[in-house]
């Protein structure tokens, strides 16, 4: 029985790490970590909507986060606010509104800690299906738009001039990000998902000298964080999300010693 949920959690974690690696690289390259955070915070609204109206939690989070992503892209063009202020505005107001609604939903028994920091006990077979099918879809779309997305990450004008349609692939990418958040909330939680996206990638950056290597290493870093983090979570009874992210941090610190040797 215990083994059973640990295996489920492992299978779920592997699926998420496989997707978080490549997406995380683009988040780091494009300096979108705060953007990812904002989408994750808005996921709280998605969770509450799904509980209130009894609709599928992953789909609701995906829809809400995608809408927030599209709203952000639109506002960035039409307001005079700098990107980071705009993100702070959306991020914290969605968190505030979410917590307000939570207050009104007092009749529902509800594990807020699980939503914020992840709960490995709550991962059931259904969630595994959502993670693996959703993850496969995300990777498939990412593979499909890889070249134009990468080109527009390096230089937007150049990509557009040479027919790579950067605006379209950028929008698709933010929706993929929303999708990843939707499938991984249960596992890592709203507040920590960006950590799983960027910390293994930051470690990979220290150790790689080309993009492909960085993607592979960030997947490896994510997998290691999941393996060791879940094991620790099981052995010393800590929350899964913080354990995984802490392991990622340790890996990152270890990678720092490696980069100093190089220089």
């Amino acid at each position, binding site marked *: 029985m215990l083994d059973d949920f640990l295996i489920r959690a492992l299978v779920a974690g592997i699926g998420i790490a496989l997707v978080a690696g490549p997406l995380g690289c683009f988040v780091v*390259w494009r300096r979108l970590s705060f953007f990812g955070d904002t989408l994750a915070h808005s996921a709280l609204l998605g969770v509450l909507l799904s509980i209130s109206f009894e609709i599928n939690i992953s789909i609701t989070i995906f829809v809400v986060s995608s809408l927030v992503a599209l709203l952000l892209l639109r506002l960035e063009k039409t307001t005079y606010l700098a990107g980071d202020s705009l993100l702070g505005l959306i991020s914290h107001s969605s968190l505030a509104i979410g917590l307000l609604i939570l207050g009104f939903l007092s009749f529902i028994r509800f594990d807020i800690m699980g939503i914020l920091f992840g709960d490995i006990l709550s991962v059931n077979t259904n969630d595994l299906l959502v993670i693996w099918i959703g993850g496969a879809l995300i990777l498939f779309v990412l593979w499909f738009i890889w070249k134009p997305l990468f*080109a527009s990450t*390096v230089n937007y*004008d150049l*990509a557009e*001039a*040479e027919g790579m349609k950067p605006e379209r692939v950028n929008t698709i990418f933010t929706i993929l990000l929303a999708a990843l958040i939707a499938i991984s909330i249960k596992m890592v939680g709203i507040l920590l998902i960006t950590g799983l996206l960027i910390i293994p990638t930051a470690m990979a950056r220290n150790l790689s000298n080309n*993009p492909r290597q*960085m993607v592979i290493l960030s997947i490896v870093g994510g997998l290691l964080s999941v393996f060791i983090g879940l094991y620790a979570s099981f052995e010393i009874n800590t929350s899964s999300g913080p354990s995984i992210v802490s392991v990622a941090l340790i890996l990152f610190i270890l990678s720092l010693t490696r980069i100093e040797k190089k220089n």
Partner: protein
Amino acid sequence: MSENNILVKLSSAGILKDNKWLVRDVDLEINKGQIVTLIGPNGSGKTTTAKIALGLYKNISGKVERFTKSISYVPQKVSIDWTLPLRVVDFMILTQDLKSNDIAYALNLTGVEHLTNSNLRDLSGGEFQRVLLARAIAKKPELLVLDEPVQGVDFNGEVALYSLIKTISETIKCGILLISHDLHVVMSATDYVVCLNGHVCCSGTPTDVAKNDHYRELFGDKSSQLLSIYEHNHDHVHSTDGNIVKEAK
């Protein structure tokens, strides 16, 4: 020129931003095998005009028609974020699929084949420009847009690269839109010159433009003498040309 030689056509194209015209009423046509050069002082709208031709602006006035999809672009500024580890060889295949032979060939043409596996961030300004140019010509585009392609390149290299650009336009018959500050080069290597200062001041063959009063006003009397300097220099540049290419190899 017959209709199907046209690659890009701008008809009274312009762009209005915050109630100011960045550039307006530009008529311009680039044909296959032709080098069109934009000249003009800083802020005269050269880069803007090139971007209009490339379709990088959404709300332009006038019309821009492109008759090819095979386009390569060397932007004025490219900065590679330090979060992204990128080697020259990764950069070469950014928007195109190339065989390693083609990559080596293009890098060899611009004299930087030895940097194939270097990280882009470790290159000097001049080396980086050479890589940008190599990437742009590697896929043998029909239209090549070069925004100050030799900035930061040493003098010998500059001459060699400009003659390379000329050779490319002749061998692969592509049209080239060139932005340059080097009037002596413009006057020697160009088929058609467009002199900009927020609008088209004057345009024509290098000889015509050099005689134009607007051109003299913008660049001073000395600049029109460049033509005669060029005519004198041409043989000289041409004869040393072979040597420089040999050196690069």
